[in-house]
């Protein structure tokens, strides 16, 4: 009986003799799950993919796919025998074949496998019709990346590994491709591991997200939890979507900050009354209210299309981000005062 689709148990991932990620354990429970690995550059995310694909060997732990060990200290199944497809970050199209030939190269494998996917569909879906007769050097890096993705998809792998698959794709086009990619992966139940440094991409595509920092898997959870319930200061700092401010626990559902006053909400972890903690304050936790007597100075305003992110300075020089819808009528300039609604109520309180 298959327990988990993919199991990685206590594997140390190396490049040469240098260890990149230590003692990592991770499971993909169901076929068709999409896992996103997030982490800063050079941390070893690509090494993880290359090792799962069989391009690197392991010296400890084991990797099993569909209940079969594919890598361990003594077992190493060759990459071509794993039915795992890896789409590299830098396009690795065969330079002497045109785009369509490259894509068909992928389709040549597993012709008999029943996954309802054909070359024309994939080309259309990834908007590659206009470049299909061109050679890799004649197309843009974004098009090459999509062609490489098409080739990987058509190889109908048991496990698809995508290394920064959309990093070179134009921003205007990226969201459309993300939607289509998610649709196709979900419909065809292609189990996928995506490496990216774009947290929005990871949160959208992933069934689960893994955060890799300092050579370790720091958190592995569904995207909502990773964002709202980061399990360490390192994860908070990496996601960079909020700040930590000093506070004192004053009751079962409240804490106190010198600048912001009382903050109420549900603690996700119990802290004794009187504890000094670091409270995670995310941009959407505070609300704008011009009538409020809690006024902070605007030091920066970032227009993000759908919203503004104001950076406010408190009396003790803390810089706090606040999210405001961009249709909000009353806009504030730098150096103006910005009112914060009181009492401050946060749905879930995350402290460290």
């Amino acid at each position, binding site marked *: 009986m298959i327990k988990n689709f993919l199991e990685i148990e206590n594997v140390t991932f190396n490049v040469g003799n240098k260890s990149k990620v230590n003692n990592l354990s991770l499971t993909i429970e169901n076929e068709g799950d999409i896992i996103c690995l997030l982490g800063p550059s050079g941390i070893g995310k690509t090494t993880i993919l290359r090792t799962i694909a069989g391009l690197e060997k392991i010296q400890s732990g084991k990797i099993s796919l569909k209940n079969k060990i594919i890598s361990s200290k003594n077992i190493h199944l060759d990459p071509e025998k794993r039915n795992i497809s890896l789409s590299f970050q830098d396009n690795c199209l*065969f330079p002497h*074949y045109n785009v369509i030939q490259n894509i068909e190269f992928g389709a040549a494998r597993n012709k008999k496998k029943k996954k309802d996917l054909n070359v024309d569909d994939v080309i259309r879906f990834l908007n590659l019709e206009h470049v299909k007769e061109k050679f890799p050097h004649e197309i843009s890096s974004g098009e090459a990346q999509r062609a490489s993705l098409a080739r990987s998809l058509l190889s109908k792998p048991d496990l698809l590994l995508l290394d920064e698959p959309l990093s070179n794709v134009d921003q205007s086009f990226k969201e459309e491709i993300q939607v289509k990619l998610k649709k196709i992966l979900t419909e065809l139940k292609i189990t996928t591991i995506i490496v990216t440094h774009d947290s929005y991409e990871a949160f959208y595509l992933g069934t689960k997200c893994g955060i890799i920092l300092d050579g370790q898997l720091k958190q592995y959870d569904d995207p909502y939890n990773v964002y709202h319930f980061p399990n360490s200061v390192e994860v908070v700092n990496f996601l960079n979507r909020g700040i930590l401010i000093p506070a004192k626990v004053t009751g079962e559902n409240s804490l106190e900050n010198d600048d912001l006053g009382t903050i109420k909400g549900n603690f996700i972890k119990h802290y004794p009354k009187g504890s000094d903690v670091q409270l995670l304050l995310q941009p959407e936790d505070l609300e704008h209210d011009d009538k409020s007597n809690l006024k902070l100075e605007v030091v920066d305003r970032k227009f993000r299309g759908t919203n503004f992110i104001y950076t406010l300075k408190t009396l003790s020089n803390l810089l706090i981000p606040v999210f405001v819808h961009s249709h909000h009528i009353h806009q504030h300039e730098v150096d103006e005062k910005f009112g914060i609604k009181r009492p401050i109520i946060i749905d879930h309180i995350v402290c460290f």
Partner: protein
Amino acid sequence: MLLKKIDIWYLSSFFISIIVAVPIITVFLSFFETTGNYSSILKDTFLYEYIFNSIILLFGVLLLTFIIGVGCAYIVSFYKFPGVNFFKWALILSFAVPAYIYAYSLTAFFENFGTAFSILKNLFGEGDYNSSIPKFDGMLGAIISISFSLFGYVYVLTRASFHYQSQNLIELGKNLGFSKKKSFFKIILPSARPAIVAGLSLVAMETLSDFGSVSFFGISTLTTGIYNAWISFDDLTLANRLSFFLLIFIFGLFILENFSRRKAQYHSLSKGGFKSKSVITLTGYKSLLAFSFCFFVFFISFLFPVLQMLYWTIIFPKHFIDLKITELFLNTILLVLLSSIVLILFAFISNYGNRVSKSKFLEALTTFSISGYAIPGIILAVAFITFISWFDNNIVRYFGINTIKSIFIGSILGLVLVYFVRFYSLASNGIKSGYLKINYSIDESSYLLGYSKFKTFTDVHIPYLKNSIFLIGILIAIEIIKELPITLIMRPFNFETFATTAYVFASQDLLEAAAAPSLLLIIIASIFILTTSRYILKD
């Protein structure tokens, strides 16, 4: 760990490299053997002369090929003038003229009562012209013959480097306020340095192993010393020992070449970084000067020997009529085809073996084995005969089998095997430079798409490298058509090629009879060169 790495590709690459390395190993082992009396005689008499002559010859040739090769490459790359597109490819035709045929032409033209004398006589009537006609013989003749025959290496590599040099670099010079002269010496020339050094290293190796022209001009070099030790004094060990010194010298050059090639990788340009150059259109006397320089080099390197051979072929038609052209042609083509197929196939397998095994040991072994290119053909042939004799006496006889010598010595098989060792580096380096352009992740992509190593080899690498294979095949063909000493020693009885026929006549002082086979050799080689000029100039 090592055992895990060993597979069929590893073993194939290993054995191919070992086969190619046998003559080098033989030469190295000779260092520990005792030599005959000739050794001490030589040390007291001619050894220093051999070394001195080799050095003079080497530096003379290097200087001349540098001036001609870099000069031509610079002019055709950066300037536009009448005929520039013609000269771009015409200058590589010099590859078709072996140094020994150039030597015949040079002598035939300038010798007493030679072609120059006849021209002057026809123009100005009878007279004592011999004393006023310069004589290009001895060391000067050898330097000129070898230089004009080999400058193409420097020209082709330097031109390629200039061609891919970014306009941005030149514009940078202008921004910094450099004059054209300063730009040339401070920017253009230094950035082409690895290519120039690579070209000069090839010239150096060819010069040190040249036999045909130095023996024709009677110059005593290390190579002729090796030949004398073997032929005149029957001292094979000394011949090998002299080869050892020659090899040490050549290894130094080889390391230099390798070093510069490694640096050359830094000159590869990314997709966005290349901006094609705007060439300067020359007018007036500058245009005439550029044209004259290129025409002079083209004339001297190619037209001159061709016209000299053509002249003799016309005025001595009997030699041409008597020549068994079809037989010589078929013999030459047979050798070309067999050798090209064997060389390319094995070079391909070995390179792929090195690529998939990623073994530093194999890489080092291959580098060592391909230095056989630098071993004079004579030594390779002799080492092969020595090895077969030893094998026949010690191994074959042990199993009660009759001799196998006749299979390998004086046979097409033996000839092709020695060609294999001699030209393996050409094939191997060609395939290797093709492979350098294939990112290793291309292989990985193929594996991940379910293709085995063998399928990756057949479905990805061979189609990608087909142009390189074609080019290498032609380069091998050109070399084999021109090759002399190995063919002379290893060929079957009564088996002649254009090169051997020309040599046999020339060695009997029948230069006029050597003209027709020489001319045909140049024509066939030129056809091969023209077929590939597009690739040679591009890469």
